[in-house]
């Protein structure tokens, strides 16, 4: 079974441009999470989808970031317009939705975003 996949693996854009990151979770996983690691610091939570609904978006830094999960399958994270401080590695994770049991988060390889 395929793991969590992310596209692209790397993206280099100029300040002010728009970038869209994509995450394909493990098939059947209703939970989908976005995290990012900026400048070698800690990996920070951005938001959490349950199916197509945003369960928790408390980590979204500002309104330049827009996450969607239409149909409850793959998700996109758009940054518009990108700023220099948005550079970092963006991770996606997914987990099953089973009440009463721990549901491990499986992480993708990340997308490395560089804003020049």
């Amino acid at each position, binding site marked *: 079974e395929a793991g969590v996949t992310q596209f692209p693996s790397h993206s280099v854009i100029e300040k002010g441009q728009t970038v869209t990151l994509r995450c394909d979770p493990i098939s059947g996983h209703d939970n989908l999470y976005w995290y990012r690691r900026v400048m*070698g610091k*800690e990996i920070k939570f951005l938001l959490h989808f349950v199916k197509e609904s945003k369960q928790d978006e408390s980590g979204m830094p500002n309104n330049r970031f827009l996450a969607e999960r239409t149909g409850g399958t793959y998700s996109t994270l758009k940054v518009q317009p990108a700023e220099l401080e948005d550079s970092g590695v963006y991770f996606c994770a997914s987990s099953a939705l089973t009440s009463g*049991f721990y*549901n491990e988060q499986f992480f993708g390889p*990340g997308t490395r975003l560089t804003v020049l």
Partner: protein
Amino acid sequence: AQSVTQPDIHITVSEGASLELRCNYSYGATPYLFWYVQSPGQGLQLLLKYFSGDTLVQGIKGFEAEFKRSQSSFNLRKPSVHWSDAAEYFCAVGANAGKSTFGDGTTLTVKP
């Protein structure tokens, strides 16, 4: 609010030597605790996790971690390090089906 501290940014050990990576956490309830490893160009791989029960947890690749509630710690250990263990290690705390909070990471270098 939950938080995680990894006091050591970088650790160097000789191959075959023992390893201990430190992790301290802050969490309002009984935490779920995790250790992840990230090798260059790879995603985060779960090494081990603690929910409840036995405070000594065994993981993959010969790693283990001990939960000490009194010290709010969850240190990762390995008795004999291999060169392939060189990577970055992250401690995390979280709730089931909720967000995880990560430490800053510890980079492990293994000397031949």
